[in-house]
């Protein structure tokens, strides 16, 4: 083989490792996990089971997508689960008890989600408090409002359209999986191919330098939080459809799953780095792990232990890899 060709291949390899190194290790972990599970239980590697894993991962995937944007800017959002509940349960309550038109319902849920993002974004950028604190507060506020508005009740029997969002199929593919793929494709495009995406990375990489390069940091941040809120509302809708019911306590603790998926997917908590497909792999990896452990009849308590270990392990591998690179 000519040396020029080898050089080209080397450069190509370096580029892939440089740009997607963190994601590569997650993909490798996912493959290894799938291999192990398919040996341990024959039921794992069946079409039906794979589809059900993807279905089970879809809500976390949608919630983690907005979180990826937020974490790339070096911020965090602890209110995702509460926002999903706020948007989902208020909409569900109105549809079930007051016969709200389901199309208006969808619009309402997405608007409520976006509104919460707008408020978070404005509070964070104009008052200048850290996102961690702002969303720690709003986590409680949105949950409280959801419970108060619905009176703590559960609303059963949602309109068909909403059920379709959570339970429908197009051919063999569940609708939530299709929604996931669509929103990820759009997000990936925005992050990779537009000035808005580059500005997002720039803010996470060095907010001051981004500001001094003429990027309107506040405006980008507010828009990102709106986008994130929109996706949280969407997640709440899909969840409502899956459960065919809504309640104020739905999606409790989902924020931690979302953050975990982002981190496992190789996005740096320090900001400036990360790609959305990594998050999708991270969310699926968590789904596969839960599914596999269920198939193996491992207790849910041990499952919690396993997920926790995977998070720490994933980040350790990534951090070792980085220090090795330097």
């Amino acid at each position, binding site marked *: 083989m000519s040396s020029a060709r080898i050089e080209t291949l080397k450069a190509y390899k370096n580029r892939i490792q440089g740009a997607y190194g963190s994601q590569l290790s997650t993909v490798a972990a996912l493959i290894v996990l799938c291999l192990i599970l398919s040996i341990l239980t024959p039921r794992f590697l069946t079409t039906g089971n794979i589809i059900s894993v993807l279905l089970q991962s879809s809500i976390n995937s949608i919630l983690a997508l907005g979180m990826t944007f937020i974490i790339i800017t070096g911020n965090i959002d602890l209110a995702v689960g509460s926002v999903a509940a706020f948007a989902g349960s208020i909409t569900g309550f109105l549809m079930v008890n007051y016969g709200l038109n389901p199309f208006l319902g969808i619009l309402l849920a997405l608007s409520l989600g976006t509104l919460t993002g707008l408020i978070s974004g404005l509070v964070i950028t104009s008052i200048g408090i850290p996102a961690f604190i702002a969303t720690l507060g709003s986590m409680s506020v949105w949950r409280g409002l959801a419970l108060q508005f619905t009176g703590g009740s559960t609303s059963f029997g949602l309109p068909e359209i909403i059920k379709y969002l959570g339970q429908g199929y197009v051919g063999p593919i569940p609708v939530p999986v299709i929604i996931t793929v669509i929103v990820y494709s759009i997000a990936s495009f925005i992050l990779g191919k537009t*000035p808005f995406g580059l500005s997002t990375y720039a803010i996470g990489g*060095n907010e001051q*330098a981004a500001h001094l390069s003429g990027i309107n940091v506040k405006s980008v941040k507010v828009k990102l939080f709106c986008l994130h809120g929109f996706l949280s509302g969407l997640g709440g809708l899909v969840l409502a459809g899956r459960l065919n019911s809504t309640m104020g306590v739905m999606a409790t603790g989902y924020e931690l799953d979302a953050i975990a998926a982002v981190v496992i997917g190789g996005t740096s908590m320090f900001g400036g780095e990360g790609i959305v497909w990594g998050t999708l792999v991270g969310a699926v990896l968590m789904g596969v792990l839960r599914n596999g452990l269920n198939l193996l009849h491992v207790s849910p308590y041990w499952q919690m232990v396993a997920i926790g270990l995977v998070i720490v392990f994933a980040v350790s591998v990534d951090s070792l890899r980085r220090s090795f690179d330097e």
Partner: protein
Amino acid sequence: MSDTASLEQTTDYILELKGISKRFQQTQALHNIDFDLIPGEVHALVGENGAGKSTLIKTISGAYHPDSGTIFFNGEQVVFDRPIAAQNRGISVVYQEFNLVPQLSVADNIFLRHQPVTGTFVKRLDKQYMMTRSREILKELGVHIDPKALVKNISVAYKQLVEIAKSLVWDCKVLILDEPTAVITTEETVLLFEIIRKLQQKGVSIIYISHRLEEIFKIADRITVFRDGEKITTLDVRRDPVTIDQLISHMVGRSLNEQYPPCKIPAGEELLKVESLGYGKLFHDISFSVHAGEILGISGLVGAGRTEVAKTLFGVTPGQEGRIWVNGREVSITSPEQAIGLGISLVPEDRKSEGLIQMFSIKNNLILASQKTYTRGGVFQPQMIIQKCQNMVKAMNIRTSGIEKQVSQLSGGNQQKVVIAKWLLAEAKIIIFDEPTRGIDVGAKVEVYRLMNELKKSGAAIIMISSELNEILGMSDRIMVMHEGTKSCELVNDQVSQETIMRHASGVREVTV
């Protein structure tokens, strides 16, 4: 000749390195280096960035372990495998970035490494001793710093002295100062030099690294020149004086007879005019104008308000007083975004934290200020970006293997060129350079100067803030001097002397007509 002498007097050296080599993957950082240090001397290390100075001091201080070669301390062969091993022998380094805890007091910081304890059963910190000893050390240095003061509340120059004091707590034999004057003012440098001389008299040997050659001539007894990982020569400047030009030619391996390339062209139309510009207590009543094809130098001491003027013009700190005209049209500038739209740009003082996104590639840094111009229908056109960036890298002579390389891997000079190139892509017409050559090596400096001249020829108006008087005198067409937030004077750069500028900068006014 001095090499043969050194073989005979090995034991007279406090520190002697023989045949030190160190390799990092592709780069031979140090190649067979011999280096020695006489007790009580100030030994300066000079060389362009990447010449091997930093690697050498890291080897001496135990941060790096050399691949080959031996180190003798006081005639005894030693191995510094960890920084603490070197510290225990009395070797300390004061790096450019200080290792101080801002929330703690001066005394706490001085004793950070070796905390004295007292008490028989319950060991506790001996605060009393820390205070008295800190006071003693600071008094010895001849500075008035309250040991109780919190480090975050004292000036940068004092922080540096606290770092030095930290080294003196234990018997200090060798003190390494890495670019100590990069962060302090001319006046503070005078104080630092006094302290260095005091330490010298006490027998402390000083290894002094600086890019500022003038000050090296003031303080150094011997100068060792590095280039590309090799030791070029050691000059005993007390015995055989050399000129700055000779030293520079040792450093770059060629003679730089035109450090400040002259460029006199007639000034064009007025691009920027400010009248009675002010911002709170930082500065007030600043008026000046800059024309196309002209460099206005702004001189003054650190803290005179120069950077603040630049940031105000660039919209970083909105809410200023006074009036601004760009291209003859009155404007009010409230954000960098808007300033860029008006053709104003700022090459900031702190390249690392303000100029560049270190984890970004060269390409992404380059397009940051002009993102929208590479889009069609809101979507980036990759081919266009690649082509523009590659052309820019070539035109600016940015030395890199490609535009996808992370800027953090470039040398300071090349990083600065990326910052400037970013503004050229944004089609800036009024460019403010804040300390454009700080921390970059001699060769790259000249390139930056050439670049400024080219911008000037292409009709840009340039404002250059600099603490280096030579740079101000070498590059400016007109010079504005600031003192404590006010404009002290404005001079046409024609037979202006350094003394004149210094006098205005320190607020001493002459009575002239």
